[in-house]
């Protein structure tokens, strides 16, 4: 028989076990109507990624866009008049920018509900680490960031 101490903080302990490799509380939510799933079919300098959509709501268009770290994305992947409950699949080849440690694909769904209002945008992200990326050995020195602009005080303008 296993032994377990029944303490009120048991739930918190469970939470911490997750927290060790991920945030205890994620960023605020957005919608998740695209039902996007990503599978890496082949990984290398150029990776093949299969994108599957199981949308729970209709979209006028859904398009796969290149995020940071992508030097080439082909072929274009886009769907129009996407319906709820549908099943959509496309494969794209993405060439990693060798200078970047990862690449990101964005699946951007758009739908106009009321022409008087801007359309609704829903974005699903997919990031792949660049396994061949080697960070520069030298630790980066402390450097200055962008300069701030100065507005002289009117009383002592210089």
């Amino acid at each position, binding site marked *: 028989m296993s032994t*377990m101490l029944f303490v009120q903080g048991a739930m918190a302990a469970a939470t911490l076990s997750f927290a060790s490799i*991920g945030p205890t509380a994620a960023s605020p939510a957005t*919608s998740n109507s695209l039902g996007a799933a990503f599978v890496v079919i082949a990984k290398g300098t150029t990776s093949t990624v299969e994108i599957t959509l199981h949308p729970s709501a209709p979209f006028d268009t859904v398009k796969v866009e290149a995020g940071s770290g992508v030097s080439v994305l082909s072929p274009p992947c886009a769907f129009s008049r996407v319906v709820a409950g549908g099943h959509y699949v496309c494969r794209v080849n993405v060439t990693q920018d060798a200078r970047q440690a990862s690449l990101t694909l964005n699946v951007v769904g758009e739908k106009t509900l009321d022409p008087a209002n801007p359309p609704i945008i829903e974005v699903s*992200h997919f*990031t792949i680490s660049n396994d061949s990326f080697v960070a520069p050995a030298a630790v980066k020195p402390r*450097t200055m960031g962008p300069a701030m602009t100065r507005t002289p005080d009117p009383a002592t303008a210089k």
Partner: protein
Amino acid sequence: MDPKNAGYLACLLTLVLSGCGGGGGSSGSSTATTTSLAASATDVKSGDAVTLTWSSTNANSCMASGAWSGTLATSGSQNQPVSATATYTITCTGAEGSASKSVTVTAWNAPVPTISADVTSILSNNTVTVTWSSQNATSCAGADGLSGTLGLSGSRASAALTTTTTLSVACSNPAFTAVKASVTITVSPTFTATVAIRYQVPGAPVVDQSIHYYVPDWANPVTKPVPFVWVELQNPSGQVVQQVFADASGVATFTGLNPSITYTPVVRSRISQAATGFDFVVLNNTAPVDTTKTSYRARYAAYANPGPAYIPDTRQPVQSMGTLTAGDGWDAAQRLLVDANRAAAPYALLASAVTEAQIVSAAIGGTPTWRPLTILWSTKNKGGLSAPPGNMDQGFVTGSGGYYNGGGHGGVDTTGKETLAAVAEDAEFISGDQSFEVMDLYPFILSHEMGHFTQALFSADQSPGGPHAYTDYEDPTLSWTEGSASGIASLVLQSPKQNRVVPVNGQLIVGVIDPSNYTVSGNPQNWPLGWYQENTVTRLMWQLYDPAGSIRLPAATVLAPLFTAAWQSGPWLATPWAYAVQLARLNPANASAISALADSVNIRTTGSDEWGSSETDTGNRTSPDALPPYVTVNIGAGPVSICSAGVSNEYNKESNIRYFRIPVAAGDNTSHTLTVQGASGTVPAINGYFYTPGSSSISASGTLLAPYTVLAVGACSVALSPYSTDTAACHEPAAPPAEQCWQVSVQ
């Protein structure tokens, strides 16, 4: 001779010699009337008296006129107060005629010199120009640090001053000795300088009609102060000669500066305030400075943003370096956000953190103890990684970042990869990658994460965490934790709107999410409305506060339940029901309105309790899988069937785990045995981590906490973890059925 004629003759003779009586004057003859009048002083202080002394010869009577009046004896003296310059006249009359005398007494007021200088504080070896004037004076001279004879008014440059010096003018008149007026010139070898630190962010989103999207209002940016921020001065060699934290208005003050040195102000993305204990820092996690370190504060450096070099004025002892503004990085000509120019982001994050901490502190009361908070932000930061480990040095993580509890964020190996080694450090990961989400332009995300920080420090967070969306039906601890974090943010921002900046077709557009009316960019949404959706919690908290609403509770009142001892000790968990019921209890005058509002958004509060015992809304589950929120399992009673639901790796959706409570008598220190029996092929897990691999039953023994012990049960592969590599450890023979029912008993 007729006497009259004799008199006429005498008069005729007198006129010839010296004049005739009645016309005044004295007679040269021995019978002529004469008089004399003298004053004891002819210059007196105003209000003082003088003694007038007079005498006469051959006079029968004397009369006073001028500044005095009346009949006088032919000789005598009299005191006369002199309030103003006066002429006293006496006229004495005798047989031979009359004679008059006058004396003038001048009344003086005290001299009134004034002196001023063009400046009263200067740096060493500078002169000042003094200007003086006087009243009631007949002469003036320099005194103290001013020398020489001066006119009654004028101006003059001082000598070069090297120490604090008093410059005086002394003026006098015949009745008064010199009266001095002074001005002290404070002379300092060093100067004090102030500099105001602000950051710039775009204005509230506006619709760009050319593309028909909400976009940041780049054309109308706003600037705000960065309170308590670190500011240092560097000399031309780059050495830090002084470092201070700014005040609440973002103004830093430096003292003892050498006017012959050119200083460069440098602002660093760290704030500290001793009075409140705030210690927040934004670090550039994609530029590690020591890869041997696993804690973020030791591994990464704060941002440092210089202002233009400042050439001191050599005369002014108090100088303003002006206002340094960290720009948002928007290039209007190219219509691009230029990463290399995004100076504002770290300071916008810090300012938001301070604002939230101040509001939360006020709601808690007293001086709550804030742990140090580390915010990781970089223009390279992004999420979207499907599974850990992320790489902090490279700026990519699972999800989209978030708050890492101070109980232990993942450690970092020498390459920046997250490890399982816990590091006690409260941290937030904020995305800045333009191709992912720019979380620094608007304060909502940071405020939301600060809400989690607040929960961890002063409230309770029993959420399993993980991915979540506004279209989800969530575990009530998740809906509470995420929804209240956004609720806190809405109170801090005084707006329910959540601005999310994402890329579309290479442009940054804004999704304007409004939980208060369930809209996105003005479009109504069919998001779930109830205890299972975080947006509902946010909506409830906002509507309780909404200054245009019907209840209009102060922010501190809306937040109060989160910080009570009851909230932190339970035994019920932090859920939407517990919040609404606690709030109603704390505000009896508004209890009915609070309960009615909560009821209207499907968080049953009227007639209910913190356990949600009266809840009737089943969300997207059937009743046995969802309600009651806490199933009661009595010690010694027969097994109770508790059903959960969900598919592998879901773990944080509604009914993935089911909560049950075991009533425990006070003082019960005996060991009890919990038994959970599942159907063949299932593996039950308690609290998401305690299970027997491959076994459909589990037992555990131990003492129970009174008055209730609260636990949760679910299918191992559903409830264990967000990642399949972990759920594989369950060794479940088959995928979990849609509904999993467990026989739970305690002996």
